[in-house]
């Protein structure tokens, strides 16, 4: 019997099927994005470098919000305070950097990242200790963080260090490679990918997939959730810094980032029940959502109507994707 050889061949085959199956949603989404790009180019032949630049800049904070949301949703939670945390970290950064030296800006950025970790940790700590449902705690904290942002600065203003702006504006080497996209790749690559490949990453997936099984296997459920929220806070702070860097100021009123991040997570193939998906899907989803808005503008559709269309497309895509998955599961 060469059962082991057979088993290993089956495994290789299984792994190939597994990876294509697991990424099928994201691959489909990328296909949809390509269609959108072709459509845009056909409709607006002048769409080119400038368009890609604008796209990357507008996508950056949204993508970071989506990554932040994805982390906590995979862990079986949800964070409705992401937009408020972004606003708070953004105004803190803009206020402290205004009129200061470039070197001081480095300290501010590090401090703001730490602040993000703390904000997330407070959310996570409250969720774990109080046992109030995640959605309630983070909704409440969204008011708290938004209030704090207004206390720091009642009106938009402040400044940003030049190097920070230079980090996301413009292109790197080739004019087709926007710095904002590079920054996004670096921020995901340096933080999320090591986490996923570490014990913490598997624990995050485990508690989102089956709390009881994770607990019985020795996973510290509460601690893992706490870390997941802290990580979400860190990504929200990165989102806040991206806002400050791209606009040069801080705005105390939260943007549409919280709900957009939930939409991106859903569209990106992350199960709201936890335990399934990744951060790449939501990032692609953010680009898709942004492209749709751009195309609406090109088609000169009323911007209010564009919101309606965005909602319809969101439901349509998720429904289509679910039907597709259902068919495949039955096949």
């Amino acid at each position, binding site marked *: 019997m060469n*059962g*082991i050889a057979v*088993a*290993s061949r*089956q*495994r290789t085959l*299984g792994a190939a*099927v*597994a990876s294509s*199956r*697991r990424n099928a949603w994201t691959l489909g989404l990328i296909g949809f994005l390509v269609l959108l790009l072709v459509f845009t180019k056909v409709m607006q032949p002048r769409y080119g470098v400038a368009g890609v630049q604008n796209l990357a800049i507008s996508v950056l904070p949204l993508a970071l919000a989506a990554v932040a949301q994805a982390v906590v949703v995979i862990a079986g939670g949800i964070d409705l305070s992401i937009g408020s945390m972004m606003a708070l970290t953004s105004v803190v950064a803009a206020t402290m950097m205004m009129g200061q030296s470039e070197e001081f800006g480095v300290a501010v950025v590090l401090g703001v990242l730490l602040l993000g970790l703390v904000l997330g940790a407070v959310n996570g700590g409250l969720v*774990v*200790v109080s*046992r109030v449902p995640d959605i309630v705690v983070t909704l409440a904290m969204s008011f708290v963080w938004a209030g704090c942002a207004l206390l720091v600065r009642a009106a938009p203003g402040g400044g940003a260090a030049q190097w920070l702006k230079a980090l996301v504006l413009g292109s790197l080497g080739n004019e087709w490679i926007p710095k904002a996209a590079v920054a996004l790749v670096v921020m995901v690559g340096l933080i999320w990918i*090591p986490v996923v*490949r*570490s*014990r*913490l990453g*598997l*624990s995050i*997936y*485990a508690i989102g*997939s*089956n*709390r*009881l*099984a*994770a*607990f*019985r*296997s*020795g*996973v*510290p*459920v*509460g*601690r*893992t959730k706490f*870390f997941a929220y802290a990580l979400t806070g860190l990504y929200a702070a990165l989102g806040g810094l991206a806002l400050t860097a791209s606009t040069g100021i801080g705005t105390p009123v939260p943007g549409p980032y919280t709900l957009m991040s939930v939409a991106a997570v859903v569209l990106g193939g992350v*199960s709201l029940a936890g*335990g*399934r998906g990744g951060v790449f899907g939501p990032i692609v989803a953010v680009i898709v959502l942004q492209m749709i808005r751009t195309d609406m503008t090109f088609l000169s559709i009323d911007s209010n109507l564009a919101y309606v269309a965005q909602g319809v497309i969101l439901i349509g895509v998720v429904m289509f994707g679910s039907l597709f998955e259902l068919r*495949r*599961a*039955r*096949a």
Partner: protein
Amino acid sequence: MTLTNTDLLLEATGISKSYGPVVALKGASLAVRPGEVHALVGANGAGKSTLVKILTGAVHPDSGRIVVRGRERTVHSPAEARRGGLVSVYQEPALIPDLDIRSNLRLTETPLQPFRHWLGELGLGELDLSSVARRVPLASLRIIDLARALAIEPDVLMLDEMTAALPADLTERVLEVLHRQRGGNRSVIFISHRLIEIAAVCDRATVLREGETVGVVGVTGGSEERIVELMLGEIVEALPARMAEPKERASDATPRLTARALSDGTKLQNASFDLYPGEVLGVVALEGQGQDELFDMLAGSVRPGGGELLVDGKPVFFHHPADAIRAGLVYVAADRAEALLMQRSVRENIALPFTTRLRNWGLIDLRGEQRRVDSAVATLQIDARAGVEVRRLSGGNQQKVTIARWVAGGVRTMLCFDPTRGIDIRTKLQIYVLLRDLAEAGAAVLLYTSELKEVQLVCDRAVVIFGGRVVAEIDAADADEPSLLRAAYNLRSDAPTPESLAGGMIAPAASTGQPDVAKADGPDVGA
């Protein structure tokens, strides 16, 4: 076949169904006569449940014909099947937990009078219909579910492992009621892993193996052998009477695990025993005698209310399952849903325990992990073809995954809580052999089992728990079913065995009530 189609109440032919690469049914057939109780038997993964789901419209077959009373039927949904007289009852009761019983009945348009009648027949006549389903004990809910199905007088009633987690007295009631159904115009399809129950109530048995119908057997005395033979196919292996030779233990050996007067409120009082390296110690108890609490404590899920636990002679205290795992105590649950990440891969499920220490911030050594996972998969002969998501595996393979995760890390002490519940004979045998092998290799195994046969088969000795205390310790050589049963009822050995339990089965200790997830994060605060 001498019967024509119209003589049959239900006839299914050429039923096929595949889930991706996994073939659940390939041309299975089933013919049920009016007035018979018809057993559907087969190893786990043979396709019994899929066939039942197809008959009740929950799953659509890829091909095949279903004929009821001579007329071809296509069943699209459970509601449609119900109207057509095909009703099934599963192991897990299908009642809405937050509604009271009466509302649950209204939901399925069940007539109240017949329901009352059947409830009385099943011994639950005094049930208050206004009680909320969530607060009714699980065993009673199963009976309610059955009474509800009987009340609408279906042509074909299907019971899918309905008795698997029922206490013995209730099982007896159910079997009586089924017995009385014989000879009428209606039929019952009965699925069970317990051949004794099948011998007691069934007229004929259809045997499935790997998705095919391999035989139809008239149930008479001695037909169990034939059924087992058909179920297993070529690998017919009569169960050996003993798998281990009794061996002397060094008198000065240190126990791997010592429980001293463990207590937990009223459920567990003064439970004491020793577990030595190299032995399989059986635990026998009727339902709800404190064995759930005992295993939860040993696994670190619940903190003991009193008493002391020693590992290798040193006192330990577990705040969290992680502490128990570090001390070498690993837990295999009866319910796979409590142990597995159903949507994740076989690999992640096996790798979960040794990758859970948050303090280690480094990257996981993916190669090394894969090697260990592969060797565990090979050791346990897991069919991991559908391994992308564990929920696609059969129940037996799922249970092997939960065991594999501990074997992969090297086992010192394994706590098995009814690990073979609802698993086919072939997988059971593999698990028995594995537990023996672990013991031979020096591990200590604590095995709670609801099947008394297993004690003599696998264990070196057994302790019996009654009312939260260890009331007896029996050597495997003397642990035949009658004496275990007497001890489990805390009877002296000269007292007669209760007649209703002559079958030698004890109800598995399913928790009475809804799964208590809140308990899971109990010890986690401040960790």
